[in-house]
């Protein structure tokens, strides 16, 4: 992997990664730094505003989105270990700040923010980070990755270059896992039914690892897997990329 890009990048560490999975954020930093990026992190950042927006509380959301716009001022590209949050900033800020003086800032921000695998492959042009992980894996397309950030090949390219990792595709790979934010709690049984099918499809491939760009999907799936006692480990793609070196 080339490590002379010398690019300055801003980190956006979404609230639940910050609170629940800090090691994934550190792993992403490790990979970005190896790729030659100079990483900076505004410690006052909190959340992209998506939870309240999806619940219908747009006013509360907009206040937090305004803070986000302020926290990420400047021209540096922004990288986030979550397609869901990056996709929200990309596609929905424009809905909140429509017909406002923030219009240009929002358009510009939506172009600057990238999900991690999108950034690695499409911005840095790096497909091999020198990672290694032994075992069989299957990749879950998160809905936000697929339909908000429009990435499908990118994570697969990165994973194909992980030494020792055998990648197989599962059935219904583009079907939602059933997380869906508050949906997972408000309509728990539907969410679990969807998660069950996702996990069963993953298990049918014989994979030991279930990899995705989004911890939100994975936290829901891992919870279900643990309850069932299945031998399947979910892994965030940044954690995979930081493995073995």
């Amino acid at each position, binding site marked *: 992997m080339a490590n002379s890009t010398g690019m300055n990048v801003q980190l956006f560490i979404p609230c639940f990664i910050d609170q629940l999975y800090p090691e994934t954020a*550190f792993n992403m930093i490790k990979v970005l730094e190896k790729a030659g990026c100079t990483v900076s992190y505004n410690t006052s950042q909190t959340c992209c505003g998506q939870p309240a927006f999806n*619940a*219908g509380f*747009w006013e509360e959301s907009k206040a937090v989105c305004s803070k986000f716009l302020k926290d990420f001022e400047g021209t540096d590209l922004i990288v986030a270990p979550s397609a869901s949050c990056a996709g929200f900033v990309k596609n929905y800020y424009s809905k909140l700040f429509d017909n406002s003086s923030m219009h240009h800032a929002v358009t510009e921000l939506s172009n600057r923010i990238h999900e991690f695998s999108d950034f690695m492959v499409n911005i840095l042009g790096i497909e091999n980070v020198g990672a290694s992980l032994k075992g069989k894996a299957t990749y879950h397309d998160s809905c936000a990755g697929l339909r908000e950030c429009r990435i499908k090949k990118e994570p697969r390219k990165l994973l194909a270059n992980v030494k020792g990792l055998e990648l197989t595709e599962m059935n219904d790979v583009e079907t939602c896992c059933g997380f869906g934010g508050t949906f*997972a709690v408000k309509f728990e049984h539907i969410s679990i039914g969807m998660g069950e099918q996702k996990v069963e499809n993953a298990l049918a491939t014989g994979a030991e690892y279930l990899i995705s760009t989004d911890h939100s999907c994975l936290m829901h799936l891992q919870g279900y897997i643990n309850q069932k006692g299945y031998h399947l480990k979910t892994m965030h793609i940044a954690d995979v990329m930081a493995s073995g070196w």
Partner: protein
Amino acid sequence: MKETAANFIAKSTIKAADKEHRRKINFNIGKYNAVVPQGKEQFTDVQLARERAKNIKWRAIEALDKQLEDFELTITRRGAKVIWAEDAQQALDAIQKICEAKGCKTLVKSKSMVTEEIHLNDFLEKIGIESVETDLGEYIQQLDGEPPYHIVTPAMHKSKEDVARLFAEKLGTDPKATPQQLTLTARKILRDKYVQADIGVTGANFIISDIGGIAVTENEGNARLSCAFPKTHIVIAGIEKVIPSMHDLALFWPLLSTFGTGQNVTVYNTIVTGPRQENEKDGPEEMYVILLDNGRTNILANEKQRESLYCIRCGACLNACPVYKNIGGHAYGATYSGPIGSVITPHLRGMEEWKHLSHASSLCGNCTEVCAVKINLHELLLDNRHEAAQEGYAPFAEKMIWKVWRIAMLRRSWMNMANGNMKTRLINKVAGSWTSHRGKLDFPQKSFNQQWKEKMGSK
């Protein structure tokens, strides 16, 4: 919680855990998924076709008043009578009046969601008129006393064995009869009904403004018979069904067929522009077209939601929806199920009662991805959620949660205040139903933010 929401939770909980239901639906939708890509091959550019269709529907809906008046003017000239119905009751009253005038005892009807919407069959039964569904899937559902499960394939949730059992029970056929034998049985019964029927009722897939006609799309020929065989033909159509010109059918027929069933074009496509004319040999003596509002103008008045009126009822969003596939069409408790149903039902029947449908979505966006006329379905669900919150329909506790969330998210220090153990305790308590099938969430002692600061501070 409203009763409608409580019913939804109860029904969807049962269905989501019903593996046999899941197997049948996945099997039937799997067949659909296999053929749709073949149908799409007939378009040089399917994206462009969808955009054009959206544009045509936009034009139709933006000038809906004029489009409908043009339709009325032209079809009236050919002898049809147009009746404007503001709600279900007005439509039913109009139908009753016609039935009484004709001394109608038996009525045949083709598959029509709008007749489901106004509960026509129940109404006719009450006033002593036999109403016979002639679409095979609908006939099966009528025999079973169930509403359609899906807007295109009404008996999708039944296997061929289920249908054989049902026919055996209701019609005394061999319980091991094959689908072909069952179809022939139904056909024989229905042919007799066509001969007896005084009135034929159909829906309309399209109201064609320029030529003053209605278009009906089907695969069995039963709708064409319902139009043409009885002496009186009644059409019931939602006002949003308009397309400006007959020429638009060149796009809409293949589009509806491909997205609905994967066919290039369905087997029968009929345009009806009035009752039998003087120089014509067959066709009904009289034709009535009932144009139904029933809440649609609420959607027309709502600028954001207006695009949901572009829907051509192909059912693609239902087939693409993981929620629909898990809970099935009946759990929704509404005439229109799946994503489009969740979008429009709150506007047709009241936000307070039906807002839960907009929340019963993981917002995966697959509905928007597959919509034949590119309606932003999942964004409209978000708009519904927003409307519901603005109208104050959220529970008090939820309103408080978002107020506190806002305060916390505006002050970074709040997020670093508690240690991992405290968060683990608190969150697992709040997210009670999260934990019952997924176990606990374990918070690390320190957030990334805290760890970063410590790391940077020590450098």
